[in-house]
């Protein structure tokens, strides 16, 4: 690996994360996931499989749900990113977060940030989802603790409480 000793130059990436404009000095091929966690200290976004299968690194880019492990950070330049840290306001939990707590939708917690962002994406598109729509909306997010039922309950509960307002 003679090339790697020298390495490519870093570049400057500017994007809005949870409403704050951030500029970082990173490699273009750094994964968005790593930049969020290591450069910006936003460790709410978790790494599970690292290959787009499990959804635990889900974030929103310009309102679209994505797996941040599959995004080279250059492709996030100039976008608006929302992570789990961007949901609560003034120490008050967002409706989905509260519903996950109330319904037992979180156990070990690794999948929870991704589940909540996938749920938020679903409810923005479909404010009153059916159970099938909830299942489909969360089908890219794996949980090995809950058996999913409490998570589906939490999303339905949040929909009733009005999750996106």
């Amino acid at each position, binding site marked *: 690996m003679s090339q*790697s000793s020298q*390495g*490519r130059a870093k570049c400057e990436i500017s994007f809005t994360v949870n409403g704050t404009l951030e500029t970082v000095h990173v490699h273009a091929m750094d*994964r968005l996931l790593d930049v969020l966690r290591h450069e910006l200290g936003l460790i709410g976004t978790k790494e599970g499989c690292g*290959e787009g299968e499990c959804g635990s690194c889900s974030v929103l880019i310009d309102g679209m749900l994505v797996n941040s492990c599959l995004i*080279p950070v250059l492709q996030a330049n100039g976008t608006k990113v929302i992570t789990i840290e961007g949901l609560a306001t003034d120490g008050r939990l967002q409706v989905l977060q509260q519903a996950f707590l109330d319904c037992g939708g979180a156990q070990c917690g690794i999948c929870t940030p991704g589940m909540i962002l996938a749920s938020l994406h679903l409810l923005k598109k479909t404010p009153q989802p059916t159970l099938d729509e909830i299942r489909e909306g969360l*089908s*890219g997010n794996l949980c090995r603790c809950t058996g999913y039922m409490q998570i589906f309950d939490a999303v339905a509960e949040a929909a009733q409480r009005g999750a996106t307002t």
Partner: protein
Amino acid sequence: MRALPADYELVAPRTLPDVLSLLAREPGAWLPIAGGTDVMVQYSAGKLLARKLVSIWNLPELRRIEVSADEIKIGAGCTYTDLREHKVIIREFSLLSSSASWTGGIANQNRGTIGGNIVNASPAADSLPALMVYGAELLLVSARGERRVPYANFHIGYRKTQLAPEELIRAICLKRQFSGYYAHARKVGARNAQAIAKVCLASLGHLVGGMVDDVRLAVGSVAPAPLRLSETERIIKGKPIDPQLMQLAKGAAAAEVRPIDDIRSSARYRAAVTANLVGEFLEQLNTYGARSENSQKVLARWNDLPPDKAAEEILPCCGSKAWASEMAAHRPILNEAALLAASDQDWNILPESDWLEAFRSHPRIGDLHAPASAPPQSAAWSSAEQQKVGAAGEDVKAALDAGNRDYEQKFNRIFIVCATGKSAPQILEILRRRLQNDEKTELHEAAEQQRQIAHLRLKKWLSS
């Protein structure tokens, strides 16, 4: 071993010509990356051979869907989500929108692109059999210009394609010629989302006078590249669907595939599933044929009526007289798809007063009596649609009654919801939510519900 970001170069030119000139300068040196759902997986695993990548994600030239009278041109950079949400694709190329819906999960559908799926050339890709049966053509582009190639010849072996090193797929072109076809797509895998198919089938069939006039079958995961079942098609074509044909077709399909044993399934299982999927398709095509024969009888009779009689007959499907006369003016309408499309087109452009007229033709949810002015057919349909509401408990009925009155007070009209299949508690939930709407949002939401009611009623009318 995991890849080191410092070993890789990634650039993001702003326009397609900039990308193409980069590819032309050093053919084969640059790997295009779109949504990253394949390339980044390789990269993270340390298996990506290319060290120089060029981003084509979100290039406007690749993210367009252009619809003309006889063709739809889907930009190669369109995502699965784009395909799932495009009206013409949903209506005329449903094999593509449904296979998009079971590719990956939502996050991967927001990033994975149709062009990327084609170039990645996995034999198991969910959407490729659909492109094959629709007879897609690919528009390839390089700094030297464009060329069109049939998709059927594009894959020349396992993970091998005709794409030259300096070329990109610009668009996928589909002819709009399948309106009378029955379309059936099916994936068999451990689960739909995030699982690679053991077998996936895309199929199209067209019947004339009880005979199979045209049939197109393509299968994924059973050969080094997506496979068209030409021999099976030849056996089916020109014949009526009966048990003997089903046996022959299933046998031919099992013999025609070239599956392998791997971690996901065995060759024997894949061949057996392919045969069963072809059988399932033929059964459904047969049922559809019987149904559409009936629809065609209804439409043929209706097409010959004088305009006022035709409008009068179709009026109960919607309730707006202006809609009914527009529909009559659309004749001749030859099949269900054209009928539903005409209905949407007429409904969406009506002025508010005509929408309100349609709303008034319904009984209040929970009232089983239609307005006296409603035609008897409309009243009968209303009571069938609200069947589940009748079965609700007294407390829910009382809450619905109160909600209806609040709604009428706020919006000065009755609450319209497509009640078919919905229980009283579900309707109550929807009613309570919509009570929060402002007037303009609510008017459009009610109109959308009425559009759906019209679809269901038109289908009932066709099967009468």
